């Protein structure tokens, strides 16, 4: 339980730090880079290294490559909908588009994971 609370605090703090950086930077397209900052990764890997060692962290990082690819597809999809599709932009809120599109992340990440684990 203690470890979970510690994880929660470290992860929350890392995310707040990177999002505050995103808030103060201009132009917005540059600040948007911070939307994909390795905040959760830094927090998780630091704690993993302390508790489970380097080999365990290496396996997590290898899988993170697939998660990162899924993030790329997800963010590109959201940007594509909001920038290129006026009808979608007019009809749905940003929160609806960004939240429902998380299905894209799950599909790509788990699909890539399944494909990689079968090789």
């Amino acid at each position, binding site marked *: 339980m203690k*470890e979970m609370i510690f994880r929660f605090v470290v992860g929350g703090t*890392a995310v707040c730090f990177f999002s505050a950086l995103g808030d103060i930077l*201009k132009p917005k397209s540059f600040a948007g880079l911070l939307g994909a900052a390795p905040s959760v*990764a830094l927090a998780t*890997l630091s704690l*993993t*290294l302390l508790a489970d060692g380097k080999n365990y962290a290496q396996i997590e990082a290898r899988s993170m490559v697939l998660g990162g690819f899924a*993030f790329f597809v997800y963010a590109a999809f959201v940007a594509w909908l909001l920038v290129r599709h006026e009808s979608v932009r007019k009809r749905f809120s940003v929160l609806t588009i960004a939240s429902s599109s998380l299905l894209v992340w799950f599909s790509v990440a788990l699909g890539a994971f399944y494909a990689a684990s079968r090789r």
Partner: protein
Amino acid sequence: MKLLKVEIDLSALKQIKWYEYAIRFLFGGAVTVTAGLIAKRWGPELGGLFLAFPAIFPASVTLVDKKEKEKKAKAGIDGTNRGRLLAGLDAAGATLGSLGLIGFAIAVWTLIVDHPAWLVLLAATFAWMFISGVLWYLRKTKYGLRIFQSRHHQHQDISSH
């Protein structure tokens, strides 16, 4: 070589309400705990995927949209379309950041076993910054990724805000 200006506006911090940070803290903490629990239950192979989960992305782009709408509302203008376009631009930035995230993961994956952990995490963070920054620069200059450019170039006016 074209120079692009990146500015720091500390006054923007004052505009963020405490509960917006609380939401980010909760989401960030929850995803970090979830990633740890998944790794413990199903192994680091599956848990590692969630190290690149877009934890606060929906909240961040919503905030961008909300702020723009509020700004326009003060001037008596409906900023719905503009706010959503700006959020799309933020998402396009995150697309490039996610390629940096892949670079981060590859750096940790390939270096962590043979080098000091703190140095690898530092190098991986620099790799993320470098890759994201270079891609952003290329996008803003002549190698711009056309997929994210509006047909009517509506966002060109707002990209500097």
